[in-house]
């Protein structure tokens, strides 16, 4: 790594850190000014209300509240749940939920990328045949239609009609009950990856060095596996960003549909019961994951192909 690469990484790190801080401030303010209060029991008297507010530190000035929150956060303390799960520490609630969501996301990305690449390469090798048309049509459908529609269809067909998959998550059968949400989530990944792989693969197959390799008399297997595939698959990194973002959006509804106790479900439930601390922690975690993902992809791509970086700095 040369000096300019390090400088670039440093610059990206600083921008990401500032962004994260700004997001934290904005989220904190917005969550505090939201209509509805976590203490919404009408039977409480003013005095009782004051006691509860003092307990959660809501009576202090806003700035002090923020400083306390950030200080606690740095030590891994995200406060306690106010009314959804009475007084449970948010860090463990969010941590447990995030673990499930994260595993689902990871499974969907891995399965989706493998199937997607295979499909894309297959379509490119059989260009303009019926298989190519079929694969392209499938990927257009997969790109256009959001994952929750697939989740609903799988739910209706496999869970309610054929009754071979469970309709809801059960912690006693974590793998069995994760088939449906992971399948629904990976459809988008498969479609995106296969569409992109096909385009890249065709471009590589048409390139001059492939013609040279063919003229050298290499057999088809070497040609495809060690010359074409390697060059076609590197750019797939570029679309991992949008794919992961789609996945994060997708998990929320798929989790709701399949009753998976993940991050998305926790966030939606905490919004419905205005549980400040959980909303804040979940939203912040989403934003942080998003920023870190973008950072990793940018840096990885900056190292693989420095031209991208230059283009970005100018434009």
């Amino acid at each position: 790594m040369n000096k300019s690469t390090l400088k670039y990484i440093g610059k990206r790190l600083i921008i990401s850190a500032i962004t994260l801080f700004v997001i934290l401030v904005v989220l904190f303010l917005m969550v505090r000014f939201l209509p509805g209060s976590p203490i919404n029991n009408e039977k409480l008297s003013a005095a009782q209300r004051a006691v509860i507010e003092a307990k959660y530190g809501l009576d202090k000035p806003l700035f002090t509240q923020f400083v306390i929150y950030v200080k606690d956060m740095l030590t891994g303390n995200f406060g306690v749940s106010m009314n959804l799960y009475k007084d449970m520490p948010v860090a463990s609630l969010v941590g447990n939920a995030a673990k499930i969501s994260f595993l689902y996301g990871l499974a969907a990305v891995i399965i989706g990328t493998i199937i997607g690449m295979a499909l894309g390469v297959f379509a490119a090798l059989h260009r303009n045949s019926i298989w190519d048309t079929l694969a392209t049509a499938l990927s257009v459908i997969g790109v256009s239609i959001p994952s929750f529609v697939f989740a609903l269809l799988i739910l209706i067909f496999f869970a309610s009609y054929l009754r071979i998959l469970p309709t809801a998550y059960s912690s006693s059968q974590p793998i069995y009950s994760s088939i449906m949400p992971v399948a629904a989530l990976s459809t988008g990944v498969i479609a995106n990856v296969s569409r992109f792989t096909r385009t890249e693969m065709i471009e590589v197959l048409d390139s001059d060095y492939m013609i040279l390799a063919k003229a050298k008399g290499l057999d088809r297997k070497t040609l495809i596996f060690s010359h074409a595939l390697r060059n076609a698959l590197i750019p797939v990194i570029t679309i991992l960003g949008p794919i992961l973002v789609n996945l994060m959006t997708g998990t929320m509804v798929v989790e709701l549909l399949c009753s998976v106790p993940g991050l998305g479900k926790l966030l939606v439930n905490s919004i419905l019961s205005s549980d400040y601390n959980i909303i804040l922690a979940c939203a912040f975690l989403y934003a942080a994951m998003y920023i870190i993902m973008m950072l990793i992809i940018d840096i990885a791509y900056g190292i693989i192909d420095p031209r991208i970086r230059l283009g970005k700095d100018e434009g």
Partner: protein
Amino acid sequence: MEDNKFLPNDFEFVGDKRDITIDEVIPTTSAWKDALKRFCKNKGAVVAVILILIIALFAIFAPMFSEWDYAEINTSLKNIAPNGEHLFGTDSYGRDLWTRLWFGTRISLFVAVAAIIIDVVIGVTYGLISGYFGGKVDSVMQRIQEIINSIPTLVVLIILLMFMKPSLGTIIIALAFTEWIGMSRITRAQVLKVKEEEYVLASRTLGAKDFFIIFKEILPNIYSQMIIMVMMSIPNAIFYEAYLSFIGLGLPIPEASLGTLINDGYKSFLVYPYIMLIPVAIFSLLMLCFNLFGDGLRDALDPTMKER
């Protein structure tokens, strides 16, 4: 050397055929006509446009000619399966689903189009100013945009809608607020490219003011990118609207949109699957058609970007 003999099929010609070009005098046509011709060649996109038009026509006219009202509750007509009188049946409140479906489609389309119009106005203005004036203005505007852009759309949408009570207006505002960034990025990139062209320099040399250059020289040359971006944003807006309804931050009762209809249907899909399946089908069809239409437009308006 003697025993090495070349057979006729030892070598094959590579790259020969594709180098042959046939010279041909093509009559001049306008850019629009060219684009239209290229677009019409793409059968998928043409079918998509026709389907979108049909769905839009039904969304506009079907509720008008229906004898039922989309919000009228009639508990004596609960959960009727599709029949001649209620084409798509009724829901658990006895509301006619044929009317509700088209009314909901109308609202979904309206929300999407309205949000995109606002977002084009904001995004194009922002991108034009940032790209055209450059320098300090540009870098400040870019930093602001970078920060807004790095908050996931969903988090922004959820917080905005918790802040402002969900209604037709607030959903449109929230969607416009999250969608304008893509628009302004494309605009800025295009402006940066176009403003260095010779014809802009020529215009400037002739004494044209910034205002004239922006509206007469730059905008007409970047419109195709904007149209592509708009067509790509519409399915996004429809999706997010449905999505928000699904997580309970959508339109209030008794309004209908594709999202709320799917959500209502989901509550009883085990018993009455048709309540959910019909809006899901229309929703998926719309998403698919808008995507195909967008792809077709991109290939037609900007052939250099065509995917092979």
